[in-house]
């Protein structure tokens, strides 16, 4: 009987016959995820993030379909990875690309709608009109009435959106216990200042019309006349400031008047290629950029080279069976790798300190009679950074070299010995080429890592010392990423995320190039002859 079933049918049968317990678990997990998604949808709806909302809904439906339907079986294994790829890699890249084409940064943080709302929600206190002292009264249904008294003794009653002279209203204050303080105002009962605090949110929304103006609560003790400070006219895209009676037109992310006065709050807007154009056409940006670029490549290359050489040396030495206590040495040499890099960097910073550091005071001054200005001289600052990076990086190289060394078959060395090769010759013709072919991809990824090694630069030198003659604040040890960081957070008036995103994109393309190179190498390695 079974033979007559197609593969597809058999698989479906097997799936169905699987314990319903697994199915239950699957459905519970899916249910939980959907519940979470619905909650997130509500939050996103509240925040008016409609793009994200759509993506979330579509994404959840696709997930449900894939895990419930049998038709797209194979997708069940690919999907989780794909989702994380989209969230962690593709989304940030897309966002960075978007930011690179905006003026996002200090002064241009809010969207235009939000910036306009900031203006239009502002009221100004009309100081040309009286300020009233207020007595607050509340009835049983938690509605409020206010008795207002100005400095000349004129009294108003504010209730139900209107303020009228005390004489003209049926609500009359009553002082039942005759202590000079009104206990009631009509049906409303007197409230102490203390007791109205929990109601202030309600009270801040109340406004009372009086003689064409709005009376609002200024503080728990006072009322004042308010009018709107700004008005936005979408037809002309203009904000009018009623206090100065000036029109401000929306232009390049700011509201600017005819006299070139700029309103404080600007907004985020797209600016086309401007950030890139600035970078490549303005000498003041280009010069430091090129300078930093060259040092970045040098830094990454030298870091890889020095750590590899030291790591390889140690690995080869410790691979020799004649060395005693190899395990102990290895463990000790791994320590820098196990310490948090942040702490290590800060310790090195202290060691290098020109006047108080140990390196100058204990090593260099007594031995050579000369101190090195580690962080003051561009050359020595670069050396210092490289030394710290050597310390941080060699254990990794030692580890991978040790691993790779152990995978080289011993017969090769035996054969070489038969041929009468010396130790150096063996290293030169067997160890090194075999190691290199195995480790090149790792060296390339190490290069890419150091290319973006913000930690070491920022913690050891902060990119300093300053370059004399540079126009933008750039330091001699700044690499592209720290230069970008300083641009994003320390530029002109705070942060220029747009420009920084443009630089990040350029870095991204460089790193992609390196990665591509890496892949090319990887493929080449498939043809390396196998010895076992």
């Amino acid at each position, binding site marked *: 009987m079974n033979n007559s079933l197609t593969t597809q049918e058999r698989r479906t049968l097997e799936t169905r016959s699987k314990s319903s317990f697994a199915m239950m678990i699957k459905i519970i997990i899916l249910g939980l995820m959907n519940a979470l998604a619905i909650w997130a949808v509500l939050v996103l709806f509240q925040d008016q993030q409609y793009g994200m909302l759509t993506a979330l809904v579509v994404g959840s439906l696709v997930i449900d379909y894939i895990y419930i339907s049998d038709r797209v079986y194979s997708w069940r294994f690919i999907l989780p990875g794909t989702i994380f790829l989209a969230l962690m890699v593709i989304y940030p890249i897309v966002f960075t690309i978007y930011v690179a084409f905006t003026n996002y940064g200090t002064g241009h943080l809010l969207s235009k709608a939000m910036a306009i709302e900031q203006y239009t929600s502002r009221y100004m206190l009309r100081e040309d009109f009286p300020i009233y002292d207020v007595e607050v009264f509340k009835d049983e249904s938690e509605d409020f009435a206010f008795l207002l008294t100005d400095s000349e003794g004129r009294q108003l009653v504010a209730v139900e959106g209107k303020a009228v002279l005390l004489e003209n209203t049926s609500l009359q204050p009553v002082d039942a216990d005759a202590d000079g303080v009104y206990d009631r105002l009509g049906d409303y009962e007197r409230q102490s200042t203390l007791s109205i605090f929990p109601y202030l949110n309600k009270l801040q929304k109340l406004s009372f019309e009086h003689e064409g103006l709005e009376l609002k609560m200024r503080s728990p003790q006072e009322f004042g006349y308010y009018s709107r400070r700004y008005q936005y006219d979408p037809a002309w895209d203009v904000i009018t400031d009623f206090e100065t009676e000036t029109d401000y037109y929306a232009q390049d992310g700011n509201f600017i008047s005819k006299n070139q006065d700029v309103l404080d709050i600007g907004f985020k807007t797209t600016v086309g290629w401007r950030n890139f154009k600035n970078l490549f056409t303005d000498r003041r940006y280009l010069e430091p950029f090129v300078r930093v670029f060259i040092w970045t490549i040098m830094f990454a290359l030298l870091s890889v080279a020095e750590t590899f050489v030291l790591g390889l040396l140690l690995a080869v030495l410790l691979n020799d069976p004649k060395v005693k206590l190899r395990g102990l040495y290895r463990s000790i040499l791994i320590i820098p790798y196990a310490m948090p890099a942040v702490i290590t960097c800060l310790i090195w910073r202290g060691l290098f300190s020109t006047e108080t550091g140990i390196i100058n005071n204990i090593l260099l001054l007594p031995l050579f009679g000369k101190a090195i200005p580690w962080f003051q001289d561009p050359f020595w600052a670069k050396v210092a950074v490289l030394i710290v990076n050597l310390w941080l990086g060699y254990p990794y190289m030692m580890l991978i070299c040790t691993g790779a060394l152990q995978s080289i078959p011993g017969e090769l060395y035996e054969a070489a010995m038969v041929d009468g090769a010396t130790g150096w010759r063996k290293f030169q013709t067997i160890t090194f080429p075999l190691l290199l072919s195995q480790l090149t991809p790792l060296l390339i990824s190490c290069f890419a890592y150091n290319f973006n090694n913000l930690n070491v630069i920022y913690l050891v030198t902060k990119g300093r010392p300053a370059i004399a003659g540079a126009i*933008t604040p750039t330091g001699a040890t700044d690499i592209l990423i720290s230069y970008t960081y300083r641009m994003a957070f320390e530029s002109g008036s705070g942060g220029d995320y747009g420009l920084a995103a443009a630089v990040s994109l350029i870095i991204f393309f460089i790193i992609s190039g390196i990665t591509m190179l890496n892949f090319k190498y990887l493929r080449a390695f498939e043809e390396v002859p196998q010895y076992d």
Partner: protein
Amino acid sequence: MKRFALLTLCLLVVLGTVLPVFASEEGKLLIWACPLRSSVMKELGNEFTTKYKVPVEVQEINFEDIRDQLGVAGPTGKGPDILIGPHDWLGQLIVNGLIEPLDLGKKEKDFSPVAISAFTWGKELYGVPYAIECIGLAYNKKLVPKAPKTWDQLISTGKKISDKAQQRWGFVVQQPDPYHSFAVMSAGGAYVFGKNPDGTLNPNDIGLNTLGGVRGAQLFRDLIEAEIMPLGVDFNTMTTLFKEGKVGMVLTGPWSFDSFREAGVDYGFAPIPTVDGKKPRPFVGVQGFMVSSFSKNKLLAKAFLDEYVITKETMIALYKKGARPPVYLPALKEVKDSDTKAVYQSASEGIPMPSIPEMNSVWSAWSNAIELILNGKLSSQQAMDEAVGQIRTAIEQSRKK
């Protein structure tokens, strides 16, 4: 079909448990404070809750993160109602549309004028100030029995103490740090930004490379050449040196007092010595409360500040935890401590740190210049000229947007 029924059921159950998470925050005050101030704010918040029946939550956020976090959390409605920070955040917070103008009414008169002017932007007040700080000359009484009154005295006292071989120094200022250097530069008339006729700062008028600025920066280089001051000392090293009695005088502010006291150093605090007979005018920093423009409880937040924070009791409680002189005058009168009085004295003669966002480019270019001068790479005139050039470029660039 059964599956979907089941699925939907699960979903509803879970939804029921998750939903309460988004209760509105209306009617509850959320305050952001840095770890230094959060404990006293929590105490005050509890007291306020008991008295006024309004819940107050204090969220502890790292000092350096508050300003940036507000820009992220505020617009999405997750920010605080009130934040505590220094007045020099004002510019960035305002142009980003993150804080709200305040109206103190009659109470404005009860504050030190320098504190009010620090929190004023244009014509509007954007914060309730509560403490003031500025730097002065802290000296180790064992090494320096009497605080020098003039810069020449400082040099001669410093020379007596300094001994490079022993790693002992006469004087230290943390480097490269324009904030501390400015005091000495300002004596000769240096300023960061000049003023417009209406009293606001004019970012096109930069006065750091004026005679006084150049001379002030050079004075520090001279101290290094005379081996009175070590090169490349940061705040931590400076503190350690002072605590170990290895330096006679340092430029620092009230933030150092606690650690000096703990180390048992008998220190004094005096105004910075005069330069060429002129008084230095150090930067003044003012701490205060600001109200987020995305708060749903603006009236409540303002009433909290007005009714509860601006009282002698609260201001004194804040003073006791922070050790900075209060700027609310009724509270200041109660303060007896001599260090505090010395700081207030120094501060009332100082200049509020400019709060316009353009200061960002000023700090980095200026500290580069100081670094180049101290390292002897450039003359002070050249370095300051270059810094001013950099600042102009940066400001011009940020205007282009």
